[in-house]
């Protein structure tokens, strides 16, 4: 446990010490900020805007998470520190979990300032603020965290498979895109009811919208948790066999 926390701390410190993290942070706040501004301007219904914000955060994940996770193993492989790390008496799973927890925490910290947008509504437009439903918003953020953990686990696997960070980023971006576009458009485009149904199940956009409306669906919980566990397991297996 002590080992895990030490690894986790190092992982977080490495995030905050790399310039990429700050560039990502800026990008993320810029896009979500502009997105929210536009949503509020267009939809006067505040709750719709809050739901929209979740979708904007989700869209940002597609860019932010591959870049956040690409360095996890690829960089250590390239610089050789992977060898020093893996010849220390640490379990492979502790290393993977620490990297996962580090990236997840960093991403959640990244999302934290978006709460200010909602606070801004409360302060600037008290007459509509009562329409904001705290429970639904909490559900939205919980879904964001769930989707992020599945995507981060995916990114870690991609990073564990290569020593080239660009390849890792593009690979995880591609897999995430399948869920992204498959989920977003397929249910609306396809004529086949089977595709529509499966697409509906996998669409993280729909999951987020539902959660942000205050509907909690245990199926999505199971989906993202099992995706996370599966990808983390695959990552552990990858780093213990590919060296």
């Amino acid at each position, binding site marked *: 446990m002590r080992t895990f926390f030490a690894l986790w701390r*190092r992982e977080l*410190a490495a995030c905050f010490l790399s310039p990429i993290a700050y560039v990502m942070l800026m990008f993320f706040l810029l896009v979500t900020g502009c997105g929210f501004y536009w949503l509020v301007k267009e939809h006067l219904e505040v709750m719709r805007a809050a739901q929209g914000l979740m979708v904007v955060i989700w869209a940002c994940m597609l860019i932010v998470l591959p870049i956040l996770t690409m360095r996890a193993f690829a960089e250590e492989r390239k610089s050789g*520190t992977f060898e*020093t790390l893996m010849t220390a*008496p640490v379990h492979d799973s502790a290393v993977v979990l620490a990297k996962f927890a580090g990236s997840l925490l960093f991403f959640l910290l990244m999302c934290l300032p978006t709460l200010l947008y909602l606070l801004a509504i409360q302060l600037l437009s008290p007459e509509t603020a009562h329409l904001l439903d705290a429970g639904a918003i909490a559900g939205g953020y919980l879904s964001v965290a769930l989707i992020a953990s599945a995507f981060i686990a995916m990114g870690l696997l991609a990073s564990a498979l290569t020593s080239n960070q660009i390849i890792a980023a593009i690979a995880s971006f591609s897999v995430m895109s399948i869920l992204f576009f498959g989920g977003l458009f397929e249910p609306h485009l396809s004529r086949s009811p089977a595709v529509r149904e499966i697409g509906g199940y996998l669409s993280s956009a729909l999951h987020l919208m539902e959660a942000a409306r205050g509907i909690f669906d245990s199926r999505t919980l199971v989906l993202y948790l099992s995706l996370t566990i599966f990808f983390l397991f695959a990552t552990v297996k990858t780093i213990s*066999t590919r060296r």
Partner: protein
Amino acid sequence: MIKVENLTKNFAGQTAVDDVSFEVERGEIVGFLGPNGAGKTTTMRMLTGFLQPTRGAVEIAGCDVFEDPIEARRHIGYMPESCPLYHEMRVDEYLTFRAVIKGVPRRAIRGRRDTVKEQCGLTETGRRIIGQLSKGYRQRVGLADSLLHEPDLLILDEPTVGLDPNQIREVRELIRQLAKRHTLLLSTHILPEVEMTCRRILIINGGRIVASDTPDSLQKRLMGDALISVEIPGDGATIKAGLLEMEAVDVVTHEPLDDGWHRFRIDSSAPGIRTQIFDCAVSKGWKLRELHLESRSLEDIFVAITRNNGEAEVGK
């Protein structure tokens, strides 16, 4: 301390390490030599459990490296080739982090950190960022890291590569001190270093162990014939013929020097060959200004063993 049995590693159809077996006793200092690409690093990586072997077993301090990797690694201090470190961290920060993940008890961390820093001459550099240190200092940080958890066995892969002569001397001195308390396996290309520090050498070539012995007995076994150098003035061809008349002498190489003298190198294993040469010179009326036994360096041994692609297997 180390027990390696039939260790084999194939990479994509190529055999990097081929059926290697050897043992290292507690307290030994073993130099691990071989040309580039001979399989040194691969072997060391398998010893530390970083690479899985295709076949074979490694036991470190009684623990099977592949069955019980965590326990085995507790006994090993390993410094990989080129000494990779987290460049964004400070020296103290890095050593503390490494101490924690190596399971040094919380209370002992500061003490251990200060001890290894002192051992490796890093007392003044604790606050420095690793990425800004010179290569020599980084090497010391790597070495300090490998000592943190007081391992029984130190495995150092080319600890002096890329250092300047002064730094090499310092690292060598450090290694010699470490040898008093640890079992040591180190690989290097710098042969005088091995001659000075190691009591046993393992030579690997083409993925096989081709020699394993003390430098002295390897020298005797391989270079049984002594090489004697003589300098005599006069007509080179006549003198050469005269030298060859001696019974014990088989081969003479001849090299004229600028000042009318000639240098002859004589291969012979006969005892007392030098006095015989002297007597020969006296009887023929030659002048002698040099007569000495050339000692062969580890370099000669290394070249002799590895040149034939490992066909000459000795001392296995």
